[in-house]
């Protein structure tokens, strides 16, 4: 289980701001309501009819109609409590905005904490890692862990040659599949989220093709991370 840290950071941030605003509103009230009722009203106030769309592949909700506030109004108006609880209902609606906008920070935070063009964002440790042959036209090889560990921070992200790999437009001596091995059981950095990346190894051990969520990157090494031998 690997949580996605940026989501948790934005969640904690928005909840913190909400609590501060709640306390501030509560203190300013001349007639103090019961704090747990106020909290419940605030929660109901968050219900809204919202407009959903994607911002950079991330779902975003823009609250439009304050449904929760209306519910509270219709329930409390006959009981003459509306004026006491009104600020909390609107605070809930405001909070729906807050959660949506602070949620947008998830993307830049993700890029900051786990830059997609660095190999260390996908692989942190290789203690139990191993190689399996996924296309049998190539020979069985094993993982050279020392070589991989040394190059984790120096591997360079490079332009994918997807079309060339697909049509296999290479000179003689190139195997029929450019990525005939898979790297299994590597550990992802803490907080980088599930699912773990899918990692293919280039036939000469000098490249990795990493797919994670909805992006794919090609990393290149100076020296091979494979060595001759039978897989364990």
């Amino acid at each position: 289980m690997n949580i996605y840290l940026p989501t948790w950071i934005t969640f904690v941030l928005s909840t913190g701001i909400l609590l501060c605003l709640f306390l501030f509103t509560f203190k300013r009230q001349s007639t103090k309501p019961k704090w747990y009722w106020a909290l419940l009203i605030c929660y109901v106030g968050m219900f809204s009819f919202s407009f959903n769309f994607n911002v950079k592949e991330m779902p975003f909700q823009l609250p439009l109609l304050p449904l929760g506030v209306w519910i509270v109004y219709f329930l409390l108006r006959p009981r003459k409590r509306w004026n006491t609880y009104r600020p909390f209902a609107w605070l809930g609606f405001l909070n729906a905005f807050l959660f949506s906008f602070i949620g947008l920070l998830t993307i830049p935070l993700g890029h900051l904490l786990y830059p997609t063009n660095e190999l260390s964002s996908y692989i942190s440790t290789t203690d139990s890692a191993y190689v399996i042959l996924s296309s049998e036209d190539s020979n069985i090889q094993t993982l050279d862990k020392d070589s991989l560990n040394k190059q984790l921070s120096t591997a360079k992200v490079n332009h994918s040659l997807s079309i060339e790999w697909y049509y296999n437009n290479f000179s003689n001596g190139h195997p029929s599949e450019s990525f005939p091995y898979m790297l299994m059981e590597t550990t992802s950095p803490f907080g980088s989220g599930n699912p773990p990346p899918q990692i293919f190894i280039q036939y000469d051990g000098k490249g990795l093709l990493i797919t994670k969520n909805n992006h794919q990157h090609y990393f290149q090494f100076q020296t091979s991370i494979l060595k001759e031998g039978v897989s364990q």
Partner: protein
Amino acid sequence: MKKMMWGISIIILVALFITLYLFFKQPTKLFISAKQQTQMAKDIESSKIDVQTVVYLGKKHAFAPLLINDNQYGGSYWQWKWGKWQLLCINTSEPFNIWKVSDAKQYVIWNVPKEPTIAKSLLVLKTERDYFMTDNKSFYYPEIKLTKEIAYTDATYGVMSVPKEWKEILKSRSTYTPSVTNFLLQQQAPQDFFYQIVHLNKYEQDIFPSSYDFNSSFIFDDIQLESILPTSKEEAGIK
């Protein structure tokens, strides 16, 4: 009123106890009685069924190869459910099938007299390579091609577990199944994994035995069973 409440409570407790007992009851040996065999023959509209043996696949699943009407080989699939062995499926002919009990447990199963011309049979797991572009991002999905020789025995039937590495590749692939989300540029998502089988004679040439052709199933309960279709060496990409 009080009596009725007591009565209801006792009934609920007994029902709960029976449910828990059946749920946790440990599997016994699978014994297919003569009466059951007659019923099975009736179900598949045959006159006679003989159970050849029982092959256990873990604790809660079993395959029992069948001889039907003294001349036809088939199979029956069983699962331990709610305290007893339940019949999931009967196949009246049993060339190669794959039984997906779970992601981690997949078995190749057959019950067919080996054609004398066959020198070896290869199980092939394959996906074609694929490439696509969406939102200015390009994706390449390498080909996966793995083979394993079928371990024939003297018996007509056999069961072979799918290798561990294959299951790991299948798991990783199911997480990252290529898909195209761009609605303007509809592209065909590539085929998922498929199993195939290649039969070769002693000269390493393709053969397609006619007795391995068809497969008909009578399904009684949920089961993930797929036929493995025969193919040629060239089609499977084997050198």
